[in-house]
Structures are given as structure tokens and as C-alpha cells.
């Protein structure tokens, strides 16, 4: 709780969301052999305490501005020898504000993240789809090296 208080005094604070990691496994066919890629996604919540002007007729108030970023780790096994790792991050996958003092539970961020799990999942799948080309390039170069070697 003390850490929270100190972090709160800084302009912004970062906390990890309850880690219910998302996972995805893909197999990509390649001349070097099938590539098995495992993806693990984790969310991170960034919160910033702000003061806002009131809606017309309401007084100004404290609000918590928050955003959820998604980090995806890829572990791929290319052929028998090469392991290819990559980290990808997408910021602001979900964002919003809540009234009052920033608190991940009290601000309802955990509930919103849970309710919008499908959105996070599709963001992760989009990153996985983009990563396919990167894996192929990595495998191609590994393949080329093998042939040269």
C-alpha cells in the first residue's frame, strides 16, 4: 500500500493487470521444416491521475485516465536448431477514464479489461498475423545460412 501511495505522488503510475496470460500456438510450413510458434500475451495498465473541468453544470473533479497496453512474446522453433524469440508491444489497446482517485480495482479497470477480453484477443491475433512475415524472413535467412554452411 505504501508503494502505491508513493507511486501515486508521481505524475503517472504503472501497474500490472491481474495476469491472465493469453496464449496462441501457430505452425507455419517452411522449406526448413514446420515452424512452431508459441505466443504469450500480457496486459499492462498505465494510470494517470488528472484533474478535469466539470461537464457544464457539474463541478470539476479528479479523474483517473488509464490505458491498457498489450505485450506479446513469441518463442518459435525453426527447424531443429534455431530458436527465434521476439517481443512486440501495442500501446493504448483500450483506454478510458474513471471518476476519482486512480485505483485499478476501484476505478473499474480490471472489470473493463475483463469485459473487453475479446478486443485484447483480436489485437493479439493482429500482432500474430503481422509476426508471420517476420518469422518467415528469419527462417529464410536461417535456411540460407544452413545451405551456405
Amino acid at each position, binding site marked *: 500500500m505504501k508503494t502505491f501511495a508513493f507511486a501515486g505522488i508521481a505524475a503517472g503510475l504503472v501497474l500490472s493487470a491481474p495476469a491472465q496470460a493469453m496464449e496462441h500456438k501457430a505452425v507455419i510450413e517452411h522449406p526448413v521444416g514446420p515452424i512452431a510458434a508459441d505466443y504469450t500475451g500480457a496486459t499492462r495498465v498505465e494510470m494517470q491521475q488528472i*484533474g478535469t473541468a466539470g*461537464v457544464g453544470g457539474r463541478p*470539476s473533479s479528479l479523474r483517473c485516465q488509464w490505458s491498457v497496453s498489450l505485450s506479446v512474446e513469441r518463442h518459435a522453433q525453426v527447424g531443429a536448431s534455431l530458436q527465434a524469440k521476439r517481443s512486440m508491444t501495442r500501446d493504448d489497446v483500450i483506454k478510458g477514464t474513471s471518476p476519482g482517485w486512480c*485505483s485499478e480495482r476501484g476505478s473499474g479497470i480490471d472489470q473493463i479489461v475483463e469485459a473487453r477480453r475479446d478486443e485484447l484477443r483480436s489485437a493479439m491475433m493482429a500482432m500474430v498475423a503481422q509476426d508471420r512475415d517476420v518469422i518467415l524472413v528469419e527462417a529464410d535467412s536461417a535456411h540460407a545460412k544452413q545451405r551456405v554452411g
Partner: protein
Amino acid sequence: MTGIDRSLGAALIGAIAVSLAPQVQAQSVDAGVEATTDEVRRGLSWSDGEVSGSADARVGFGGLDASLRLAMLRKSDRHANADAVADLALGKDWEAGAFTLRTEAIGHVFTNADSNMNYGELGLGARYSIGPLQVGGMAWYAPKQDNIGGDNLHLRATADAGLPGFPVSVFAALGYTTGDTQDSRSARLRPAGDYTDWKVGAEFNQFPFTLGIEYVGTDIDTDNTVSVSPFADLKHAGDRVLALVRMSF
């Protein structure tokens, strides 16, 4: 002047409609419904001291924000038996070092009043945040309009504080209202001339709910003042405690 009020309302509605349109780029949307034991603004009840309900929404985009709030006025004496008021606001926050400067335009549109009660005002202010404390000063000026019987200037100092690690915010405000008096309608916003108002309160937040309690008061001598204006509603211009519950979306 009515024409000006109408065109102000129309302009604000237009601006908000345009602002609401590009939802895709919207940076933030927040909205809520609220119930309060009394709709009090600047220390004055706008709902005859009766229970009121309201709904509001705000869209922020690129530093600008547009908001709409609808509040029940319960056939308010202060506003010629109006049933409800719509507050339309368009504002912009400007970052200036540690300060945030605020400019805004607000239109108040009253429904079902016995006569046209609509008016508009412009706001200019600054906020400063230091850790869990936010202090601010703001001035709202309503230029000379028939519906408020002259012009009106409201100055307000506010302080809001969060309690780190605890879902409670506390706040205090001090306001001063002045203006000129052309006819009885000036009593809508200044029941007995220039006055000071104050407020202290606390809010408990557990998303999506906010529970609040406030003590509000004015320096208007409601016991010994008699007003000839039907809009003064002095019975509901004094000290009181009010409670509110809000559900945010």
C-alpha cells in the same frame, strides 16, 4: 436577445453534433447518470430544493471536449417553472507548464419554462495539480442578456484532493457572484444581489458507482431578505446538506 440565445444554443448543439460525429478518433468518452437530493449550483437550488436526476456525456478529442448534461428542475421557481435544463458546453484545456488553462463556452437551455429562460456564458480558468491535490480558479461571465436581467460574473476557487490508496476524494469550493441588475430576472442567478457561496464535501468511488455528500451554503440572509422578484426563490438559497449517487459508464 432571444434570437441570440437561440442561435447560441443552436451553435453549441451544432458544434457538439460535429464533435460527436468522429467517434472513431475520440480520445475519451465518459458518461453517467446521477440522482441528487437537490440540484444546487453556486449555492442556489435550481430544483426548488427537491430531488433531481441528471444524465451527462462528454467526448474529448485533440484537447477539445464537448459535453451535454440534462438535469431535472422540478418546475423550478428560479427558472419560470422549467422542467429541465440542458447544459451544452464546448471547452479546451491548454497545457501551460505545471498549469492547465481552461476556456469554455456553455449554453443553458431550459425546457417547458413559462418564458424563454435560456442563457449562455463563457469561462476562463486555470488548474494546478500537485500530487493528490488539485487547486483551481475559474471565472464565468454571462454577457448582458435579457433572460438573466443583465450580466453575471461568477468567480470560483476550488480544491480537490484524492486520498492515495483509498477510494475517497474530498473537495472544497468558494464562489463569488456579481453582476448588474436591469430587472427582476437578475434574481435567478443573484437572488438578493452579489453573494458568496461555499461547498465542502466528499465522494466515495467504487466503479461504476460514486456516492457523495456535500454541505453547501451562501451568505444570503434568507430569513430577513424579502424579494419582489418571482425568481429569487430565497427559501432555497441558504445552507443545506445534499447527497448524490452517480453511475458512470
